[in-house]
């Protein structure tokens, strides 16, 4: 059992591009759910359109990467508008259902064989993200590695996560500036009681729409980074559980806080990778009975997700406000 490797892998996942993407998804969800009270169960749909908007623009239409990035962001904003205009005036639960359904419909359409010519269909689409890596300031020879032990990145990876975490920091700052203002006060009042907000002259639909667009756009940016990181997109990467991973990260870190979604995303990937690495190491221990090793073999990933779920259950029991949340706020629900 080599704990250096286990911790190295976990740290690598916690600061790697996957955590950046999850953090962006969770920040967007925090704007929807944490601050405005919109139960968006289809955040993955925004990521999907961000990723496919970028990939298809470059791969299928041959446009430049930067045009692709803009199209990816535009498509995720368009999804927010298309979802919000008909459903935000309705019962909040209908909104939740509409979001999860929309995300799945888009994924199935994009992944269907009829769409092969446009999106690659069930096959993944791939493109050349060279325009992004051309800007990479880190030496990126075959021997160049940054980090210690298994916590190391290639120059290209380091460039992706540098840009990624810088965006996370910038967006978190922007959200902080927005939410501490009177504008943020209106969002929270809508979360608490939208009729009260209406009775004081606030246009609730307009504020919900603004929140939906902002959070959806941030999710879309996560998708764009996903596309650049993998130089492509695959429909299987955008299953509904991505939304729930984002919820898990948000609740772990603390909803309606500024740093909660970021901390949560880092912790989510750290735990997930730590447990998976641990189990993989465990499976190769000679003292383990053969039956147990057989059971573990290949199931490490599934078990680690289940363990993260368990951690979430324990967190809800013992620290339901999340890591950074405020204890007193939570108890106010018991009115």
């Amino acid at each position, binding site marked *: 059992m080599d704990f250096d490797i286990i911790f190295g892998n976990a740290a690598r996942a916690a600061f790697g591009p996957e955590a950046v993407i999850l953090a962006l998804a969770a920040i967007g969800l925090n704007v929807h759910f944490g601050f405005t009270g919109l139960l968006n169960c289809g955040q993955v749909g925004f990521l999907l359109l961000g990723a496919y908007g970028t990939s298809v623009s470059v791969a299928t239409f041959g446009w430049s990467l930067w045009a692709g990035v803009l199209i990816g962001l535009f498509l995720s904003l368009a999804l927010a508008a298309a979802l919000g205009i008909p459903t935000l005036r309705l019962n909040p639960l209908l909104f939740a259902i509409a979001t999860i359904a929309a995300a799945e419909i888009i994924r199935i359409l994009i992944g269907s064989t009829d769409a092969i010519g446009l999106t690659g269909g069930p096959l993944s689409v791939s493109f050349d993200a060279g325009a992004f890596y051309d800007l990479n300031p880190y030496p990126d020879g075959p021997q160049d590695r940054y980090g210690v032990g298994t916590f190391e990145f290639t120059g290209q990876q380091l460039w992706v996560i540098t840009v990624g975490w810088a965006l996370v920091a910038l967006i978190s700052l922007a959200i902080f500036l927005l939410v501490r*203002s009177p504008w*943020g006060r209106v969002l*929270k009042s809508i979360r608490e009681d939208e009729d009260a907000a209406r009775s004081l002259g606030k246009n609730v639909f307009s504020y919900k729409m603004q929140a939906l667009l902002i959070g959806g756009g941030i999710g879309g940016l996560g998708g764009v980074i996903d596309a650049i990181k993998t130089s492509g997109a695959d429909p299987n990467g955008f299953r509904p559980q991505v939304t729930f991973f984002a919820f898990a990260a948000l609740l772990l870190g603390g909803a309606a806080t500024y740093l909660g979604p970021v901390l949560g995303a880092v912790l989510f990937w750290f735990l997930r990778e730590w447990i998976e690495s641990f189990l993989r190491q465990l499976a190769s221990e000679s003292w383990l009975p053969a039956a147990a090793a057989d059971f573990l073999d290949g199931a490490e990933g599934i078990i680690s997700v289940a363990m993260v779920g368990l951690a979430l259950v324990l967190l809800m029991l013992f620290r339901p406000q999340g890591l950074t949340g405020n204890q007193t706020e939570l108890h106010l629900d018991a009115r």
Partner: protein
Amino acid sequence: MPDELTPNPDSPRPVATPPANPAPPSDGTDIEPILTVPPVPGAPKPNPILVVDNLARSFGGLRAVDVDHLEVERGVVTALIGPNGAGKTTLFNLLSGFDRADSGRWSFDGRAVTAPAPDQLARQGMIRTFQLTKSLAKLTVIDNVLLGAPGQAGERLWTAPFRWRWRDQEHENTGRAEELLERFNLAHMRDELAGTLSGGQRKLLEVARALMANPVLIMLDEPMAGVNPALGQSLMRHITLLAHEGMSVVFIEHAMDVVTGISDWVVVLSQGRIIAEGPPWKIIHDDEVIDAYLGRRRAGEAR
């Protein structure tokens, strides 16, 4: 209580403002016109802020509101009374746009209300409170009140991130909000979350928040329910003062001593219809009101 219910029918304005709080000099001159109005249902008023025509709303077979004509005078305190289920709150909901009328039309502040939207009516100055208090539990008390301030630059997405664009206005609003909290005995709770307040305090908070919006017409749905009497009195005294400054007030209330104490005009609703209206000292002797609402014994006491 009985002696407060015994107004002298000759006095023009019974128990209006307690002596501790001298009425502004304008008192008497701007209240006078309402006294010339005949006390009959649907009576036209000299300077109405709200004019309602043929307003109806049914729930299934129940006709909850069925008002032929109602005018609410500007700058006075109007009480809306009636038995439980008379349609008082439904009438509030219709007028403020929180419920859709089956038929009827009304105008507010001289403008016909064609497509009633609650937020739009509120921005025009019609601010209502709710019978079941809507305090925003996870906002602080001061934030609850600040939310009421109208025309905030910082509530626009494009200005919100730039603090210097709204700091001065926020500062001004905070000063006003603190004054209101002081007046309603909530100043010590300023930075607590509203969810930690008691029921009566939430009621006061909601009224403070509504007043923060600088209403032209404030509609209070049982503002005194659960508020301790002394504080309730100070609340109502404050509201009468505001009425003297030109704000119009409509409030729903069951306690008759409050109604006779501070209202200039009383509208009685029963089974959705207006069965009587008039100055309080006349209303409490109205036979139909006694039968429908006050009851013989109570009215006997009042006599």
